C-alpha cells in the first residue's frame, strides 16, 4: 500500500465518517484534545521545573514525578485518542503541513528522550539541580514548546 492510498483509505474510513456525522463531533473532539494537552504539557512542565531546580525543590524528583505520573498518563491517553480522530478528517492537509511535521517530530523526540534519558534521571538522585537533571528538564521543556508551537501553527500558517 502506498502512502497516498493509505491516506485515501483513512479519509474514507468509518472513523472519518463518524467525525463528519455531526457538526458537533469535530469541535468536541478538538476540545478534548486541548484539555488533554493542558493536562499533559502542564503537568510535564511542572516536573521539568523541578528538574531545573526551580520549583518544588523540597520534594525529591522521583516522588513528585510519581505523584504526577498518573495524570500525565491520562493526558497521553487523551491526546492519543483524540489526535488521530482529528487527523483522519483531512490526512493530506496534515501530512503536507510544516507545523504538523514539526509537532510530530518534537513529540517523537520527546518520547525517545524520555525513554532514554528522562526516565533514568527522574529515578536517580534526589538533589536539586544536578547538571543532568537540569539538562533533562531543559530539553524536555524545549521539546514541549516545539509540540505546542507546531500544534497551534497547523491551523494558522
Amino acid at each position, binding site marked *: 500500500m502506498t502512502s497516498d492510498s493509505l491516506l485515501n483509505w483513512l479519509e474514507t474510513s468509518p472513523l472519518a465518517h463518524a467525525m463528519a456525522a455531526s457538526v458537533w463531533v469535530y*469541535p*468536541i473532539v478538538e476540545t478534548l484534545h*486541548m484539555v488533554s494537552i*493542558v493536562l499533559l504539557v502542564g503537568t510535564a512542565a511542572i516536573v521539568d521545573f523541578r528538574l531545573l531546580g526551580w520549583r*518544588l525543590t*523540597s520534594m525529591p524528583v522521583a516522588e513528585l514525578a510519581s505523584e504526577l505520573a498518573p*495524570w500525565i498518563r491520562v493526558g497521553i491517553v487523551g491526546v492519543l485518542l483524540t489526535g488521530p480522530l482529528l487527523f483522519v478528517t483531512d490526512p493530506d492537509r496534515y501530512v503536507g503541513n510544516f507545523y504538523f511535521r514539526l509537532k510530530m517530530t518534537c513529540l517523537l523526540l520527546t518520547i525517545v528522550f524520555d525513554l532514554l534519558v528522562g526516565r533514568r534521571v527522574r529515578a536517580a538522585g534526589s538533589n536539586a539541580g544536578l547538571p543532568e537533571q537540569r539538562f533533562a528538564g531543559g530539553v524536555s521543556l524545549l521539546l514541549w514548546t516545539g509540540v505546542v508551537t507546531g500544534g497551534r*501553527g497547523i491551523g*494558522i500558517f
Partner: protein
Amino acid sequence: MSVLEICQWLQETPAGRMVREGYWGYGVPQIAHLAGMALFGGAVVVDDLRLLGAIRRPEFRELSSQLVVVKWIGFLVLTVTGILLFMSDATRFYKNPSFLIKIGLLILIALNAWFFRSGVYRDADRWADGASPAGARMAGAVSLFLWVCVIAASRAIGFTLPDV
C-alpha cells in the same frame, strides 16, 4: 462612546492591525496564548487535583505557593496575548456568543478562587496533611469543571464568529 465604537477604535490601533494583518503578528500571539494556557491551566489543574485528593503530596499550601510563580507567568502571557487577539478583531469578538460565555466563565473561575482563598483556605493548616474538607474538594471540582468549559468556549469562538 459605545462599545462598538471602542471596539472599532481598538482594531484600528497599530497593535490591532499588526495582529490582524501580520503573518507572524497573528501566529505568535496565538501560539503564546496556548503555551500560557498550558502553564496556567496545568498549575491550576494540579492544585485542583491536590484539593480533590487525587494527588497526595506535597501538602496543598506548599504545592500551591510553589506554583504561584508559574501561574503568574502563565496568567500574564494569557492576558497580554488575549487582549492582543481581542483587539485584532474586536467588533466580531464582542458579539461572539462563545467569547462572551468564555469571559463569563473566567469571572466565575475568579469568584470560585476568591471564595476558596477567603474561606476554607484560611484554615488550611488544620487540613494540610490529611484529606481536604468538603468545601476545598468542592472548590477543586468546580474549578476543574469551569476550566474544561473555558477550553470548550475558546474552541467554539472560531466556529461562531459573526460575518462582518
